[in-house]
């Protein structure tokens, strides 16, 4: 339980950084931290006590795997989630560079032509 809660704390820290910080690069870092939190949470919920990786090697029996293997589905989800995070990060960096070129600053406090 405590582990789950700590990942949620990590998530909240990331969201705080994403929303409250003014610097654009800090915002990118916040996004990365939220990604870590959610990925770790999903892997944690799939862990089986004393589990092994869900990969069959030649010297293993099927029974061993099905009784001890950790949940493979969350791992598949996290693989997808990591790549999505990478994609979002690259798009965000591109927008940041363009914003820097246009406004000459990384400070969101000065990037305020729109009222919101």
């Amino acid at each position, binding site marked *: 339980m405590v582990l*789950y809660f700590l990942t949620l704390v990590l998530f909240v820290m*990331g969201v705080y950084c994403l*929303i409250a910080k003014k610097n654009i690069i800090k915002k990118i870092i916040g996004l990365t931290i939220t990604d870590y939190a959610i990925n770790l949470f999903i892997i*944690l919920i799939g862990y089986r006590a004393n589990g092994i*990786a869900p990969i069959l090697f030649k010297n293993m029996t099927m029974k061993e795997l099905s009784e001890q293997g950790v949940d493979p589905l969350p*791992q598949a989800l996290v693989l997808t989630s990591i790549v999505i995070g*990478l*994609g979002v990060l690259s798009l965000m960096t591109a927008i940041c*560079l363009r914003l820097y070129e246009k406004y000459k600053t990384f400070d969101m406090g000065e990037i305020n032509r729109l009222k919101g």
Partner: protein
Amino acid sequence: MIDTFLFVLLIFMIVGSAIAIETKNMLSSVISCGIVGAAVSVAFLMLGAPDIAITQVVVEVLILVILIRATITIDNTAIEVHWDTFAVVSSLIFFGLFLVFAFLAVQDLPRFGHPIMKVSQQYLETALQKTGAANVVSSVVLDFRGFDTLGEASVLFVSILGAFVILRRHGRKRRSEEDTEKVGILSEEEIREDYEEFRE
């Protein structure tokens, strides 16, 4: 045993993130973020997810390189501090409430180390026979849930395409009607020319 280890690792990650969020130096901020990522991949390795650990380490390296290369060099790495008290206080209250509810909610989840595995047990037992792949994660990613992976490849494609679109020289057509569609990697002269135009 693993509980204690993960607990220490998570505390380490929280401290690392706090440094990454609050430090004034950009470079140390990015590097602490990278350290947190490395800790995450260690945690994946401990939790029986070597596939994810490999991917996480490699992606982490790439993220760090992109962040340092693309953003740090053009900033003077010092941040001017705007302490917006209202925003900070209101978000702290909101996040505090969120954490209280989250703390109550995680009590109802199955205990750590005892997942339900209603669907996944079948994957473990029949993946080899149904798909022929020894790596169960691979068989789930590319066969049982292949449609997700198609979506994931599209997400990567969209984001790369989006980045190229955003880095385009001109958004709207200007004086000359000729095609100014060169995108992405421009020569130095072109950007300089563009910049002169922009400054006018």
